[in-house]
């Protein structure tokens, strides 16, 4: 099966019907393994058991940026290649990305209160992630505000590509500015600066949450294709012509 074949929504639906159950099972299995490893991870000498929040905070934070990256590629697909599934992918990803970003903010806040002594600090990392969350909400609002999906897709694609400038700002905010948030300790030059006892559960949870995103995204794309068929049939019924 080629990428051209996947441009056909009917073939895409057939493919998702086949792989979604396997993806869901793999996600559940990996999440279960990751949760057990997280529970068994030793307490940190400084953070104590609070280090366990990191195993869910970091994957959500990574995915908040990764999903915007996926939407940016989809935006290029809409504007440059006019791929039929590009705007379907972008629209379906936005609420999932917003949820991951919300969880990154809230779990970070719940970690910050006992460790930093505050739920929130207007530093560069936290503020730039909050802006990312607001941009997700803006995109969702835009999709809902414009009734014609193709018009909404072009506007959303432009907004997504403009918003993509925030992703490197989030990533490097801890290097460019003096922030309360600690610098990168996994994805950094010279390799991870984290003990295996924490790195392994963290990576397992990161892969599990990534699989969760792929599963939810494919299912949401399937729903969006069906929604557009419903819309086409409604218009057909109204006009009395074939869809």
């Amino acid at each position, binding site marked *: 099966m080629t990428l051209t074949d996947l441009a056909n929504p*009917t073939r895409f*639906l*057939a493919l998702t*019907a086949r792989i979604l159950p396997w993806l869901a099972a793999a996600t559940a299995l990996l999440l279960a393994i990751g949760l057990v490893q997280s*529970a*068994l991870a030793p*307490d940190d000498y400084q953070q*104590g*058991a*609070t280090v*366990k*929040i990191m195993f*869910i*905070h970091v994957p*959500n934070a990574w995915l908040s940026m990764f999903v915007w990256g996926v939407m940016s590629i989809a935006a290029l697909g809409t504007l440059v290649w006019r791929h039929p599934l590009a705007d379907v992918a972008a629209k379906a990803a936005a*609420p*999932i990305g917003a*949820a991951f970003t*919300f*969880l990154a903010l*809230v*779990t970070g806040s*719940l*970690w910050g*209160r*006992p460790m930093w002594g505050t739920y929130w600090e207007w530093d560069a990392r936290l503020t730039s992630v909050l802006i990312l969350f607001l941009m997700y909400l803006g995109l969702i609002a835009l999709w809902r505000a414009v009734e014609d999906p193709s018009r909404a897709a072009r506007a959303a694609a432009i907004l997504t590509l403009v918003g993509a400038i925030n992703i490197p700002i989030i990533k490097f905010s801890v290097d460019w500015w003096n922030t309360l948030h600690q610098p990168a300790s996994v994805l950094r030059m010279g390799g991870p600066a984290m003990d295996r006892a924490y790195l392994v559960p963290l990576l397992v949870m990161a892969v599990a949450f990534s699989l*969760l995103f792929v599963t*939810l995204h494919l*299912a*949401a794309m*399937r*729903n969006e294709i*069906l*929604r557009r*068929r*419903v819309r*086409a*049939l409604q218009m*057909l*019924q109204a006009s009395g012509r*074939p*869809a």
Partner: protein
Amino acid sequence: MALGPYASFIVTSYALVAAMVLILILWIVVDYRRQKTRLAEFEASGVVRRSGRGAGDIG
């Protein structure tokens, strides 16, 4: 597994993530069923796609 003095922060974090993931799954499942039902209603009323396939047919 002792969670220490900050157990409430840890438990709340995991509970919130679990709740949000469940909400996402539920939202997608309910939305899927809603779209399939609407497509089935069109099919039942004789409105079909230009391809001649059933409205909800994905094959």
